[in-house]
């Protein structure tokens, strides 16, 4: 199981800014190790963020997203104290869900 995500969500003037830092190797599958073997691909393919069960952002990624990916987005309609849930799924089928309270 991967390490937890670090999520910060702040509401100001009706707009909530969510910043997520995920912990993931994000191997693109094109790199070679010291002995010349391809390092197998292992990266996050899907990220879904929800607020009160409603999708507020969906992202599809390739291996070109950096290691320990950072994601920031903004949405309207949330209040302080609400929860934002972020879930990622990688190409090996592993997934992780974390949540944060909007401040």
């Amino acid at each position, binding site marked *: 199981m991967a390490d937890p995500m670090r999520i910060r969500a702040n509401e100001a003037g009706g*707009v909530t800014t969510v910043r997520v830092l995920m912990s993931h190797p994000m191997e*693109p599958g*094109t*790199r*070679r190790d010291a002995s010349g073997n391809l390092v197998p691909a292992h990266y996050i393919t899907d990220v879904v963020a929800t607020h009160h069960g*409603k*999708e*507020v*952002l*969906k*992202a*599809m*990624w*390739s*291996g*070109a*997203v*950096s*290691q320990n*990916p*950072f*994601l*920031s*987005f*903004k*949405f*309207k*309609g949330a209040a302080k104290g609400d929860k934002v849930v972020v879930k990622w799924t990688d190409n090996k089928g592993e997934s992780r869900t974390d949540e944060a309270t909007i401040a």
Partner: protein
Amino acid sequence: MKQNRRAVLKTGTALATLVSLGIVTAEQALAANRDAFAAKSLADALKAVGGQPATSDQVQIISPDIAENGAVVPVGAVSKIPNTSEIYLLVEKNPTPLAAAFMIPAGTEADVQTRLKMGQSTNVLAVVKADGKLYSAVKETKVTLGGCGG
């Protein structure tokens, strides 16, 4: 190994040809959006995304002029076009140019930021889809140290 690579390239080209011939329509290509990530050239990736976008000053791409470390380049996109529903980030000279796609539901602002890898100095594109039309913005980022490892 070499042969494998050839086969992969052939498949990619074949798919692109199918799209260009209109046998596989853009909509179908979009439905199987994952295919866009396998596109090996910018033209193919744009085709898989839905066509040639129009340049628009309402789309803003955030990418540094010079990136010292190609493994971690902060890239973002902001669209001021109403009803923006999708944002794509493409790195022209990466082996697979399409790096990330974002679906923006109503209520979410067309303003996303992440970090991408870049193998070399390249143009970075933000392509947005609003009301079914595509708009784009380009910025060149110089990379001092490539991020694809080797």
